[in-house]
């Protein structure tokens, strides 16, 4: 990895010239396939380079090519077969003779090729917007719609449906269909999280290919024949792996819907906010869909450096707590933020050196952990984060269930092994040398610091989002924000520093931790730091060695983050 990242100039990309709608463009000869292997560029990809979208249902850049929907049929011109001299037929002016493709048995009829599986051929001309191509698309779309229930009014996919979109762009207003529609199973319970409406399905097999080739769970298939084809699981085996909800994302129509989201909200009302999944150390990029301060769904946001276009089901459904009734929304120990911060500051100022311990949960952001570290430096406090380990898998789920263990290590809250200081903190409290404990986002009673030990403290300052045994013991309880309610960055297990944006307002008194930590640090250390997240990040990036090497700035992180060396 280091070799690659150090190379400034990417290797030269070999290109070839292709004519799209009469315009010559240069396109790379090779393009990455679904597994990342370089293979010859296809007609569909060449058109993408030309800025022309070839409509498609079954093709997905991260899945094996199936070629079944025929929506990407394009009329093309090809050089003629080489003659006995091995040369292709030429025009009089010496250029390669290009013949628009026709049916071999009916030479008056143009023949299309599927853009997704047809490689570029030197000299090829792509008639991406020709009447012939348009006619082929209209015909495929008409076929797809004849047996479709046209129930957009109650369909969850409405607003983000490729049948709708392509109908607008490439369809006809009327169908000639004069027969009875095929009826297929509706509201089929495919698994604990997925519902199938077989009548809406266009049988593109994206879900089948995803399950088999990405999730490695060959759970879905097709039963029956012809127009009666239906997606199904084997007998009554439920479709239940930790990635099933991705099939809802890639389903181009409303056939597969999420039980969690169906009938909850029309998608066009949703505000979309770039965010991150906090379920584990992978840091899958997400989009939060919210309306009127309520979150309705997570969707994966494509980032090839992290999660590709996928995310796991447990991560995706891990958002209900954000809007939970239980949320900590009141300050305990003081009548308002100003008083609380002043009181805590004055107590900390008086704390003898070495008598303070700080546990900064690895669910806090880089910026928050950085501010806690500043506090720790001033107070000469012992610090740590609690480890939260679980099971990982072959795809995205990481055994480290903290979203920011790496950040905690790099910033110096935790050592190489998370939690290695916890027993020293526990024995310090036991021995009475540690009198003050500051806990952010961690229930320490679960990681070796019992409630009895917490009772021995002179001062317990806790910030968290939901109540737990530690918050119950707090002398000062500072309600914090869910990531969806603030901005900040996490560093994933592979060293990807990524930022997330604010989608929702926090409940009651709750404030972004970095905001009040900034005040606490200013009061305690006398140093006035940055009061914006951008400034704070840039300040941290200038001080934390791993970030400094990459000259990170908030702006530089972009939407998909930057990988630093670990």
């Amino acid at each position, binding site marked *: 990895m280091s070799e690659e990242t150090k190379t400034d100039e990417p290797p030269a990309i070999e290109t070839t010239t292709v004519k799209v709608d009469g315009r010559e463009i240069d396109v790379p000869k090779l393009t990455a396939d679904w597994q990342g292997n370089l293979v010859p560029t296809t007609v569909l990809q060449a058109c993408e380079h030309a800025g022309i979208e070839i409509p498609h249902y079954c093709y997905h850049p991260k899945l094996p090519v199936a070629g079944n*929907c025929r*929506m990407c049929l394009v009329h093309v011109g090809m050089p003629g077969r080489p003659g006995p001299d091995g040369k292709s037929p030429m025009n009089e002016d010496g250029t390669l003779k290009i013949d628009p493709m026709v049916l071999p048995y009916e030479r008056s009829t143009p*023949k*299309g090729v599927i853009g997704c*599986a047809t490689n570029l051929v030197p000299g090829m001309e792509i008639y991406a917007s020709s009447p012939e191509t348009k006619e082929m698309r209209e015909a495929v779309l008409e*076929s797809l719609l*004849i047996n479709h229930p046209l129930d957009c009014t109650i369909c969850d996919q409405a607003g983000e449906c490729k049948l709708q979109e392509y109908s607008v762009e490439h369809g006809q207003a009327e169908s000639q269909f004069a*027969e009875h529609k095929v009826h297929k199973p509706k509201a089929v319970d495919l698994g604990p999280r997925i519902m199938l409406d077989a009548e809406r399905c266009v049988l593109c097999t994206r879900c089948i290919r995803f399950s088999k080739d990405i999730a490695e769970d060959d759970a879905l298939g097709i039963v029956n*024949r012809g*127009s009666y084809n239906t997606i199904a699981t084997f007998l009554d085996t439920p479709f239940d792996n930790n990635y099933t909800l991705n099939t809802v994302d890639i389903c181009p129509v409303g056939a597969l819907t999420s039980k969690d989201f169906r009938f909850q909200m029309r998608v066009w009302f949703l505000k979309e906010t770039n965010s991150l999944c906090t379920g584990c150390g992978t840091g899958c990029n997400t989009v939060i869909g919210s309306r009127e301060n309520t979150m309705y769904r997570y969707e994966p946001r494509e980032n090839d450096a992290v999660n590709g276009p996928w995310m796991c089901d447990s991560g995706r459904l891990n958002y209900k707590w954000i809007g939970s009734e239980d949320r900590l929304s009141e300050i305990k120990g003081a009548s308002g933020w100003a008083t609380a911060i002043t009181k805590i500051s004055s107590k900390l100022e008086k704390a003898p050196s070495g008598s303070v311990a700080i546990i900064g949960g690895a669910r806090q952001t880089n910026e928050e952990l950085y501010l806690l570290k500043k506090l720790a430096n001033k107070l000469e406090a012992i610090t740590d984060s609690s480890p939260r380990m679980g099971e990982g898998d072959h795809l995205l789920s990481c055994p480290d269930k903290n979203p920011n263990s790496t950040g905690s290590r790099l910033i110096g809250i935790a050592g190489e092994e998370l939690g290695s200081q916890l027993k020293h903190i526990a024995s310090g409290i036991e021995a009475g040398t540690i009198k003050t404990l500051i806990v952010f986002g961690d229930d320490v009673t679960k990681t070796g610091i019992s409630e009895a030990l917490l009772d021995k403290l002179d001062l317990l300052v806790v910030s968290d989002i939901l109540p737990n045994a530690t918050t119950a013991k707090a002398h000062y309880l500072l309600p914090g924000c869910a990531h969806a309610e603030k901005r900040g960055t996490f560093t994933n297990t592979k060293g990807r520093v990524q930022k997330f944006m604010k989608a929702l307002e926090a409940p009651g008194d709750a404030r972004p931790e970095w905001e009040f930590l900034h005040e606490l640090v200013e009061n305690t250390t006398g140093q006035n730091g940055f009061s914006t997240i951008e400034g704070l990040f840039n300040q941290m990036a200038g001080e934390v060695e791993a970030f400094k090497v990459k000259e990170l700035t908030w702006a530089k992180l972009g939407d998909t983050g930057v990988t630093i060396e670990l």
Partner: protein
Amino acid sequence: MPQEHKLLLKYADAPDYSKDLDCYERHGGYQALRQALGMKASTGADGNEVTAQAQLRKSVLDSGLRGRGGAGFSCGLKWSFVRHPNPKPVYLICNADESEPGTFKDKQVIYKDPHQLIEGMIIACWANHVNLAYIYIRGEFTEGAKILNTALAEARAKGYLGKDILGSGHDLEIHIHRGAGAYICGEETGLIESLEGKRAYPRIKPPYFPAALGLYMCPTIVNNVETLCNVKHIVEMGAEAFAKLGTPNNTGTRLVSLSGDVKQPGYFEIETGKVTLGELINDPNFGGGLRNGNQLQAIIPGGSSSKVLRAGETFKVGEEEMDLLDVPYDFDTLMKIGTMSGSGAIIVIDDSRDIIECLANLAEFYAHESCGQCTPCREGSLWMNKALHRLTHGEGRAEDPEYLKHIAHNIQGRTICAFGEACAWPVLSFVDKFKDKFEEKVSA
């Protein structure tokens, strides 16, 4: 008087002929295999060595043998698409999934002379460096599968199969695989998927040409039963003599399945192109004419998917004006008159039949057999079937002929496999040639 020319069916129906190995050997069986295995490498014009196998492949190419499954593609050319030596194993599959409606020719060989097929296969496997081959047999041929298995066991016991066949150093095993009753399994890539244990969804070509990425993604040759039998005869007769049978570019014999409204339906073996459609239907040596004094209405000349021909049609073939019944039964002339000889199945329809009912029946078959993988065929085949049955149930509309053509036109040439053509062509041709009958149907 036109005659049959029996090459493949020389012995099959003889009263004293049985399907066991002894009988086959008494009739000269497995001599062609010995002959092939005895071939020696030679030196080519360029001074390079030409292996015995390459010579045999060249011989099959020179014989002009065209595939008997339906497409009529040059067998030698098909074989030449496999590169030798190949880093992967090369497979050969005998397509015995005879399912094109009207076709019952391969069955004759399988049931009556199984060793002829096996000998042809062993030679073809040797010539193409194949050590493992399969016979994919139509599920309904339960008895055929048993017969072939018995024959394979006999051949194995005699050293025609297995390790070091007849001391040649060539190893070969052949397995029988029974289909489960889907027409699409006759499409070679659908067949390969099915053989791999999957749903018989034909593969997209490119990239999955069997010669490069066939069975288990290895180079694979898929040949029809009749085609493989012919390989034995090419070895026996020599390419030149074989090429003299039939007519130029339409060499050898063809097994013709004749069905429908003729007095003597059945199978016949003819020299390709030496017998006309009219003779096949009317000659006492063949169909013997129509029944009950009925008149000819239509001919489906090459299995149910070939385009229909209407009685009384005339065609211009080259400079020649030709009546339908004078059309020689071969590959090229039928293509020139806008249809095909396909699997060699001629379906005769007399004037007592409702032609729309006939088409509706075909459409029902195709709607039932469409695998449903790709959109135009999946949706279009059932759509046409519904429209045609609406017509036959008295609910026809004046616009239906054009409506049907619109649907069929949007299928042909736009699908993954040739099933698109197979279901579109009957509709396109029936509508074109029997427009008056559609009009009658609508007004009735």
